[in-house]
C-alpha cells in the first residue's frame, strides 16, 4: 500500500475543491445571469476539458508550464521554481481539468433560482451580498455539493493529465491512480488491487456523503 500516493491524491482533491468551488460559484453565477454575446464561447471553453482526451489537455499544459512558455516563465519569475513535475503544477492542471465539473452544476443551479427571488430580497432590504449569502447560496447548495463531489471524485481518478504534467514523483506528484498503474506495470497485482479497492471506497464514501447531505432538504419541492 502506497500511503504517500493516497496522501498526494487526497491533498490534490482537497485543494482543488477548496480553490475551484469559489471560482466556480462566481463563474457559474455570472454565466447564469449574464446575457452577453460571447457567452456561448465562454461555456464552450469551460466544457472543453470534458471532451478533450486527458493526454491532449496534459500535453498543452505541459507545454505552457515550461520555462520558455509565458505561464511557466511568469511562475518561475514569481516563485523561482518551475511548474512541471511539481505538486503546484498538477494542482493547477487539476483546476483546469475540473472546470466543467465544478462550473456546470453550479451554473444550472443558479439558472433555476427565480429572478424575482433576488428582487424580493432587495425589496426586503438585503444588500446584494446578503442576498447571495442568505438567499442564493442556500438555494444553489445542492448544485455546489454535487460540483464539489464531482470535482473531488474526478480528481481522485484523474490519470492522463496528471501523468503528463507531473510524472510520478513519490510524495509530490504520484497520485493513487498513477501508483496503481505503476503497480500493475511492476506485476504487483496484489498492491494494485488493494489500492484500487481503497480508491473505490474513498470515491464511493465521498459521493455518498455529499449526495446524502444534499438530499436532506425539507423544502425541496416534492
Amino acid at each position, binding site marked *: 500500500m502506497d500511503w504517500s500516493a493516497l496522501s498526494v491524491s487526497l491533498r490534490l482533491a482537497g485543494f482543488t475543491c477548496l480553490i475551484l468551488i469559489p471560482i466556480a460559484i462566481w463563474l457559474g453565477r455570472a454565466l447564469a445571469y449574464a446575457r452577453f454575446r460571447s457567452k456561448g464561447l465562454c461555456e464552450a471553453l469551460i466544457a472543453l476539458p470534458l471532451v478533450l482526451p486527458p493526454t491532449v489537455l496534459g500535453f498543452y499544459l505541459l507545454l505552457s508550464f515550461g520555462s520558455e512558455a509565458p505561464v511557466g516563465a511568469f511562475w518561475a519569475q514569481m516563485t523561482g521554481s518551475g511548474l512541471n513535475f511539481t505538486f503546484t503544477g498538477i494542482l493547477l492542471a487539476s483546476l483546469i481539468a475540473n472546470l466543467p465539473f465544478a462550473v456546470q452544476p453550479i451554473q444550472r443551479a443558479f439558472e433555476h433560482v*427565480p429572478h424575482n427571488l433576488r*428582487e424580493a430580497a*432587495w425589496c426586503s*432590504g*438585503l444588500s446584494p451580498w446578503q442576498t447571495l449569502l*442568505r438567499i442564493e447560496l442556500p438555494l444553489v447548495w445542492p448544485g455546489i455539493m454535487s460540483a464539489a463531489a464531482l470535482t473531488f471524485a474526478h480528481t481522485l481518478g484523474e490519470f492522463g493529465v496528471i501523468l503528463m504534467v507531473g510524472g510520478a514523483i513519490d510524495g509530490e506528484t504520484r497520485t493513487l491512480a498513477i501508483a496503481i498503474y505503476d503497480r500493475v506495470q511492476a506485476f504487483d497485482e496484489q498492491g494494485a488491487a488493494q489500492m484500487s479497492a481503497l480508491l473505490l471506497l474513498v470515491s464511493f464514501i465521498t459521493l455518498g456523503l455529499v449526495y446524502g447531505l444534499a438530499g436532506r432538504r425539507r*423544502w425541496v419541492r*416534492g
Partner: protein
Amino acid sequence: MGWPGAGGGYVADSSIVGPAAGLGVAVNQTGPIPLDAEFVCQPGELLALVGPSGSGKTTLLRTIAGLYRPQGGRVECAGDVWFDAERKHSLSPQRRQVGIVFQDYALFPHLTAAQNIQLPLRHLPQLERREQAEQWLAKVRLDGLGKRYPNALSGGQRQRVALARALARDPKVLLLDEPFSAVDQVTRRRLQRELALLRQQIDIPIVLVTHDLEEAAALADQICVLHNGESLQQAAPEALFRRPASPLIARLLDRHNLFEGVVVDVEGHQRLQWGEAYLEVAEGLANLSPGETVAWYLPPSDIVLHRRDRPSQGERENPLAATVEELVVLGGITSVSLRVNHGDMLRFDIATHAARRNQLTSGAVVNVSLLAAGIHLMPGHRVRADAHDKRK
C-alpha cells in the same frame, strides 16, 4: 415638475393634488419599452393600474420599486425623491422602503413562513423579530402556520405570507402585482375582501396592478388606464366608467354604447342628432358648434326600457324605438342588444325576470329612453378613427 393635468392627452380628475405625502410617478422613455405615464396615489388610497397585457403596468410597478430604471422621469414618495432622471438620482431598491407582492409571491422556498416575514426585520433584535413575525402571521390569519415551508402552504396562504412580508418592512408604499391571479375564484374573493379590510389599518399609498376591471372597480379609489405604456386617464372608478375621456379608454374599459352624433340646432336648442333621433344632452352640448361630429358614450345603466303595460320613469327623455337583435341570458342577468333604425346597436343588462315580464324576444320592437344626464360627449374624438388604434 408638474404633476398630472399638464401633459399631452392625459386627463386627470380635478380632485387630484400633488404627492406631498403620497406617491407621484412620471415616467417617459422611447424604448425598449415605450413609456409615457403619470399618476399619483395619496396615503391610504388604492390606485389600480389597469390595461391590457403589454401596456406597461408591471414595468411601472418595478420602476416605483427601483427594479427598473427608465430613461426619463421622476418618482417621489412621502416627500422623498426616489428617482429623478434629470439629476441622475436613483435610490436602490433597498433604500426605497417599498413593500411588494409579486405575481407569483416570490417567497423564499428555503425559509419557513415566519422566517420569510422576519427577513425584512433584520434590524431588530432576534426576540422582537420573532414577536413581530408572529403578530403579522396573526394579522393575515395564519397563526400556527409559521413553521411551514412555502411548498406546504396553499396559494391563498402563500399570498398572505407575501403580503405580511411586504408590510413587515413598514413600507412607505405597498405595491401589488396581480396578487390575485394565481388563486382560484373562491380564494380570490376572500383575499380581495381581506385586502379591503386590511387597507383600513394602513395609511400608505397602495398601487395595484391588475387586468381585471371588476377587481379594480371593487377595490380601487382611483383607476389609471394604461395603453401601450401610456397613461390615458386617472379618475375614481365611478367617474371613469361613466365618463371615459376618449372612445379608446371606453373600449379598454370594455364599454359598449359608443356612438357618433352631429350637433344640430333644433328650434333654438342644441341637440345631438343620432340617426333619426334628436337627443337632449344634459351637459356639454352648449359649448359645441352646430355641424360638429362628436363621439358619445352612454352607460348601460342610463338606458331605460319602457314597460309595455305602464309608463316608466324617465319615459319622456329621448324616447326611441328599437328592434331586439339579441338576448343573452347569463343566469339572473340578461344582456340585451337593440338595433336602432339607422343601424347602431345599444347594449344593456336587465334582470332576466324583467326581460320575461316585458316579453322581450328576438325581433320584437321595444321603446327605450336614453337618459340625458348619462350621455357623455367626447368632443374632438371620432369613434371610427380611434377604432384602428391597435385593438383587435
